[in-house]
Structure formats: C-alpha cells, structure tokens
C-alpha cells in the first residue's frame, strides 16, 4: 500500500478553502451556463446566434477588437521601444501612465473619450469639419478599445526588449547590416512571441469590454452594437437562452485565444530553454 504523506501541514485546510471558494464563486455559477444551454438546446443556440442583429454585433466586436489590437501592436511596440531604449524628459511619467487604462474605471474612460470625440469635443470638432466622425461610429469603438487594451502589448514587449542583449545588434552591425535590417531581421523575431501574446490578450480583452464602449458606440442596431451589449439587451428582455447563446460564442473565442497564448508562451520558453 502506498501512502503519500505531505510534509507541509495545512493541506486539508487550504485545499478545503480553495475548493469551496472556487466552487461557490466560479464553478457553480458557470454550471448555470451549461444548464441554460441544455434548456435552449443546440438548435435554439444556432437560431439565436444566426439572428441578423446578433450576427452583426459579432462582426462589430470581432472586427473592432482586432483592429484595436493591431493598432496597439504597432504603437505599443513603438512605445516600448522608446521607453526602453531612449532617455528623455517625461519618460518615467509616460511609463507610469501606461498603466492608467488598467487603473481607471472603464465607465470614466468611456464618457471622457466620448466627450472628446463628439462633434462638439476638443478632438471631434476639428475632425468633424474634415468630415471625419469618431463618436457613435465604429471608429469610436476602436478608439475606446485601443485605450482599454493599450497596456497589454507594451507590457508584454518591454521586459523582452530590456533583456535583449546589445550583442546581437552589434554582431549584426559588424556584419554590415543597416538599422532597418537589424530591426526586422534580428530584433523583431526575438519579439514575436511577446507580440503575439500581447496582441492576443488585447484582442481577448477588447472582445469582452463593455463599460468604455457603450458610451462612445451610439449602440445603433446592426451598426455599432457590440456583442456584450447584445447579452445585456437580451437579458433585460428576459431572453435568457439568447443571452446565453451570445455568451457561448464569446466564451469559445476567449478560450481559443487563451489556448493560443499558452501555446505561444510554451514554445517561446522552449526556445529559450534550448
């Protein structure tokens, strides 16, 4: 008979607390999703998500989150680069501000971004004269999502850039490579896993974001309605099974993204580990 003995005490206590807490807060409520799905049935789910309005909301959510994540990948790389490589006045301040979107309540971000970009806003007015409108359009959604997901890419890349030894670049330089070639051939490949991770996290967060978007989006059906809003709307109409259906697709998307992130990080680790 094999008896595994645990050396450190407290296994029963800590496992008991952990399991009960997780069951009560996460597991049991999540099971409700399964129950609700069972009640609606697969045909119910398919009918719900192929509804025109819901289908449009997916397109808005996925499209805008993707673009916002892409914008942040480009600007985030630039910001990380500047913060790591250059010393200039205000660097520390910018570095601290990067976290702002994580700290500031999303509703506050939503109303202030909306206020800035309406036809009467500080940024919106000059643009409106040029015929460009941000608030209450898809562009507005992208702006809000860019703000919310800004820290992800920067914070994913920053540590990698810090650790990147200048030896690689110097080696490249001694071999006669120019700056552009060094960046694209030597530095960018090193950043790739972190970029992919940052992008995916930003994309996932963008998909689920609600507070900041609903103010700026205008929420016009078929045009600027995001999927999370559809959940809320269906819930308020007591169409629980439709709300569940919308949520299921988004959950699936989140899980796929998280899976990709895990794989990327595992592969990156295997490179480093050799």
């Amino acid at each position, binding site marked *: 008979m*094999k*008896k*595994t*003995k645990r*050396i450190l005490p407290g296994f029963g206590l800590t496992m008991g607390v952990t399991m009960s807490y997780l069951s009560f807060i996460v597991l049991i409520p999540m099971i409700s999703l399964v129950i609700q799905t069972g009640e609606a049935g697969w045909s119910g789910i398919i009918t719900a998500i192929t509804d025109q309005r819901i289908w449009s909301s997916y397109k808005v959510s996925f499209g805008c989150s993707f673009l916002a994540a892409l914008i942040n990948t480009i600007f985030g790389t630039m910001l990380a680069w500047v913060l790591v490589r250059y010393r200039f006045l205000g660097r520390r301040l910018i570095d601290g501000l990067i976290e702002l979107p994580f700290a500031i309540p999303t509703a506050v971000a939503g109303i202030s971004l909306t206020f800035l970009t309406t036809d009467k806003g500080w940024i919106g007015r000059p643009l409106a004269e040029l015929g460009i409108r941000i608030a209450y359009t898809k562009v507005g959604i992208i702006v809000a999502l860019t703000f919310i997901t800004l820290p992800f890419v920067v914070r994913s890349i920053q540590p990698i850039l810090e650790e990147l030894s200048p030896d690689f670049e110097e080696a490249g330089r001694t071999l006669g490579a120019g700056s552009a070639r060094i960046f694209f051939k030597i530095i960018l490949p090193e950043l790739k896993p972190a970029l992919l991770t940052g992008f995916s996290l930003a994309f996932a967060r963008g998909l689920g974001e609600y507070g900041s978007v609903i103010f700026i989006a205008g929420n016009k059906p078929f045009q600027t309605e995001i999927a999370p809003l559809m959940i809320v709307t269906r819930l308020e109409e007591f169409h629980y099974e439709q709300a569940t259906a919308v949520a299921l697709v988004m959950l699936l998307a989140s899980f796929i993204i998280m899976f990709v992130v895990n794989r990327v990080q595992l592969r990156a680790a295997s490179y480093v580990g050799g």
Partner: protein
Amino acid sequence: MYVELKNVFKRFGNFQAVNDVSFGLAQGTLAALLGPSGSGKTTILRMIAGLESPDSGQISIEGSVINNLEPSRRGIGFVFQNYALFRYMTVFDNIAFGLTTKKEPKAKIKERVEELLTLIGLEDLGKRYPAQLSGGQKQRVAFARALAPRPRILLLDEPFAAIDAKVRRELRSWLRHMITKLKITSIFVTHDQSEAIEVADRIIITNSGRVEQTGAPVELYRSPATPFVARFIGESTLANDYRTLVGFEEAPDGYECAIRPEFIRLFAPGEEVQFENSVEEGVIETMAFRGDTLEVIIRVRDFTLTTGYSLERPPLAPGDRVKVLIYRLYAFNGDRAVLVSNKRLNNTGNGYNFQI
C-alpha cells in the same frame, strides 16, 4: 545499529529512486552517502528525515521503527543544501526557532543559542540577517540551527556544494572537528569522493538507487566490491582484455578491468629493471605536471595507461620507450570486482602498501 534501513524502496512516477536499500550505522558514526547525481542518496537522506516516505521497507532509529513518526518527532537535525535559513529572521531567531517551537523558557533558549553561537564562532553576529553573512557563515548557522534542539541524528544534504572551493576545504575540517567533538551520529550526502574520504568514518556508496558498498574509506579504496566502486573511488584507468597483459594470463575470466595509477611502475630507458620477465614495453604519449608528480600516459600495445612518476627519478620525455610493470589490477567479473596480482612477481604480501 543506531540508525538502520531495511529493504527500503521509493519510486517517483516511473523512476525507481531507491531500490532495496539496507544499511546500518553505529552510534556516533559520521557517515557519507556518496554517489553520482540521481543515485538516490538525497532521497535516502530525506526519507530518514521524514521529508519523503518510503514505499516499503523500514527505517529505525535506536531500535524503534520511525516510518510513521512525524518528521519533527524523529529527533533529527537537518542541514539543507542551500541552508534554507529563514531570511526574515536574525541569526539568533533562526537558531532559536526549533526551541521556541517547543515552547521552552526564554532564558533557556537564550542560553542555548548563545552557547551555539560561541561553538560556531559567530558570537557577535546574532543580530545579523542571513543575507549579511558569507557562504561559510551561513553554513555554520544552518549547522547550529539544526543542532539547537539537541537532535539524535544530524543529516546534511550536500553541505559543501554551495560554497566556493577555497572555503570548502576549511569548512570540511571544521565540520569534521565539530561533529567528532559533539559525538553526534551524522549522515551527509555528497557526490564528491574526496569530500567523503576526507570527512567520513564510513561511506555508503549508492548507484542507481542501490547501495553498492558500505565501509570505511580505506576499505572501499583497497577492496572495492563492485566494478562501480572500483571506478568511482580513486582515479583508475579502465582497460579491456586484461588477460593479454604480462603476468595476468591466468587471471579469472573477465573482460574489463581498472588499473590504479599506483599499481604501475615505470622504468626509464637505461634504468635497471627489477623484474625483467614481468614487464611490458611501452611508449610515453604525454606527460603533465601535477604539482608534486608527473602524470604520465603510456601506450602499451592497445592499452592506454595512466600513472604518476616522481620528479626525483630519471627524466622522461614523450616518445621514450619505457618498461612498464603492472603490480595488480581490479578485474571485473560480472558485478564483482576482484583484486588480481601479477603472477610473475614473487610477491608475498596480499594487500598492497601505500608507499609506491
């Protein structure tokens, strides 16, 4: 036996870490568990401490089986490889920890800790934190902490591994001195044979989860019981097909053998050869200065042999043809190692003397 292991097994997943290990140690012994990494030595130590539990087998101290005894009730002191000093406690509090747990009176604790601080020669460092100590000092504190509750047995996991080479030698003799002075039964784990030979009274050699041989250092050196021990203790040259060597034609059947450097004698060109009919012809391949002797590598037909050569003797150079006398060798026969002497030598002694 004071500490005794009987048929102990331990498996981690698919890895048989400890495979039928039995040995016993008398009270007051300073023993080394010696073996390559992955040989199970640390697992054995941790099982004695109660940090791992054996799958089967018995571990007893002072005649009573301790398998199901809580680690803290076994009366052991444990020195971890990286000391595991509590970083957020002072040296004093670290040493006092085991005593405060037992709720001993404050004055008594203070007295004991101060006694130990004096013993390890760090009287003035009681208020320091571990981070402010050197490697050697940390080790002494870990030693004192393990001793504070007056354990029956002291266990040390690779006690010198984390210390740089220079301090290590000092600490070895310090530790040996301390343990002999306190007369506490101690077992330490090491993968370094010179460490085990220098420090321990008894060595337990482990390999692939088994005990290969147990004995005093000299015993292991003189009469290794298995090929593994012959190879592991001392520096020997391995050779094949030893029955083709002059004087070993009638050696027991076998193939591989180990030849210690001191089993070989060289005769420089022109030097008088004492046992003309029992020597081989060889050519010197390389020579390296090793501080007090020369290490000479000689080629004898297909054999490559290593031996020492005193600086006081006639000079040699690579390429020189020399006469090589092999006194004896360890012939490996299955899992046994047998000492075989050169039959053409008319020597009377069975063992060998150490002054070659």
